[in-house]
């Protein structure tokens, strides 16, 4: 059980049977008045946010959350299937739960699956993934303007801005947190 004085940014709570994370927090108190714990909370499943001022008498249940390494297997309809490498148990995430990570999911990639009371609710990928460029306009020789970019498609179907010299069939490294191109990868 947490009390109001335990509240801080990043703390994860269970409210109405759903996991929330505190995204903003401030202790406020008029000199002679009540202490108020102003918090902005984000639902870790739906992403919806709300603000509330808690009081010192309020108590909170911690959210039972943990992360587990799993391997991405395949997509079926709008479900993404992952496998627990230890128990070989398979779990499914919806497209909404996978979010932007879907742009970087290639077969057999290892991801951290976020579990709330053993139910999968989200995913976090390694910071960097290497993907193959599957569609790219050919590089017009002579186009040497440095810093110029062009859109290419990678094997997951994701379209990304890359330097003009990147060609079809090449492997590129992408930062999964920003979705940005980093460098070409040999091999």
């Amino acid at each position: 059980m947490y009390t109001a004085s335990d509240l801080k940014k990043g703390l994860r709570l269970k409210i109405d049977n759903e996991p929330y994370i505190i995204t903003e927090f401030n202790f406020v108190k008029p000199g002679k008045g009540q202490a108020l714990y102003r918090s902005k909370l984000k639902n870790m499943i739906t992403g919806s946010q709300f603000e509330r001022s808690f009081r010192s008498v309020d108590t909170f249940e911690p959210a039972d959350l943990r992360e587990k390494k799993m391997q991405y297997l395949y997509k079926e309809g709008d479900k993404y299937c992952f496998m627990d490498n230890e128990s070989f148990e398979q779990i499914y995430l919806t497209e909404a739960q996978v979010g932007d990570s879907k742009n970087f999911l290639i077969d057999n990639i290892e991801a951290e699956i976020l579990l709330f009371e053993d139910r999968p609710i989200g995913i976090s990928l390694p910071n960097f993934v290497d993907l193959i460029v599957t569609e790219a306009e050919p590089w017009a020789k002579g186009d040497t303007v440095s810093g110029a970019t062009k859109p290419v498609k990678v094997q997951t179907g994701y379209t990304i801005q890359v330097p003009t010299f990147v060609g079809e069939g090449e492997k590129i490294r992408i930062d999964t947190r920003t979705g940005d191109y980093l460098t070409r990868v040999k091999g």
Partner: protein
Amino acid sequence: MSSSQLDDNFLLARKTQALSLRAVLIQNIRQFFIQHHFLEIETPLRIPSPAPEEHIEAISSGDWFLQTSPELCMKRLLAAGYPRIFQISKCFRAAERGSKHLPEFTMLEWYVAQFDYSQLMEQCEAMLITALKDMGHTQDIIRQNNKINLASPWERISVADAFSKYAPTGLQEALHQDRFDEILVEYIEPRLGIDRPTFIYDYPAKLAALAKIKKSDPNVAERFELYIGGLELANGFSELTDAREQRQRFEEALEAHAAKNWASYAMPEKFLATLEHLPPCAGIALGIDRLAMILANADKIDDVVAFTPETL
């Protein structure tokens, strides 16, 4: 030198300007009171029974407590015939830590016999205008890109008017729903002292603390607060001199503490015994750290003290 020592030194060195402003501020304040014939006094920080107030929790120190404010001892001096006294001292309050709160902070407190809260508002305004002028703020002060005009007279608005002007909920409704502080903090405080400093006055009688109830309107207490740039700086009132009523308010506060399982402190009997001799007077407490935040245009109280509990 280890890298953590370097970090420490860097953080402290970065505070040079704020700490200098703070030091000059305290010197100027002291000068004002000495020039106006106040006696500077020192009262004990460690006391057997702090003033019981519903929402203020004292920190224990052995069998006694650290003062939450110097109020009781200062009023005993007033009752003994000291007409104009001031003190700059450390105060301690449990569980108060945030961007504008430290559990140990510096308070300026002063009392004037034969004054009421309106006269005290005027004196507070005059003191701050003088102290700030001596620090180069002859006309205004900038807070978060906003220019606050310091010219007298400062704004005065009653609590009831502030609720009707700024809050979605009226004062009576807020009190009834036990949401006074919540609405004050959310809707009203951010609007106070924005163009010029604001005194908000006539607090509901229920929130009187140690203030006198207004004769012409028993629903309110002769209590005020000063805000600059949305920041609460000072709380003052015409002092309650009725020992019976004061005892009753203390009893209610102690009951509220018990309900929250706070450490219980004894009724301040010596203070109550001298209260009958307290002349009509007014007193005010002003947060020095908060005022330094205004001067340094700092967002966090951490920026105007050398050390916070976390850095010790």
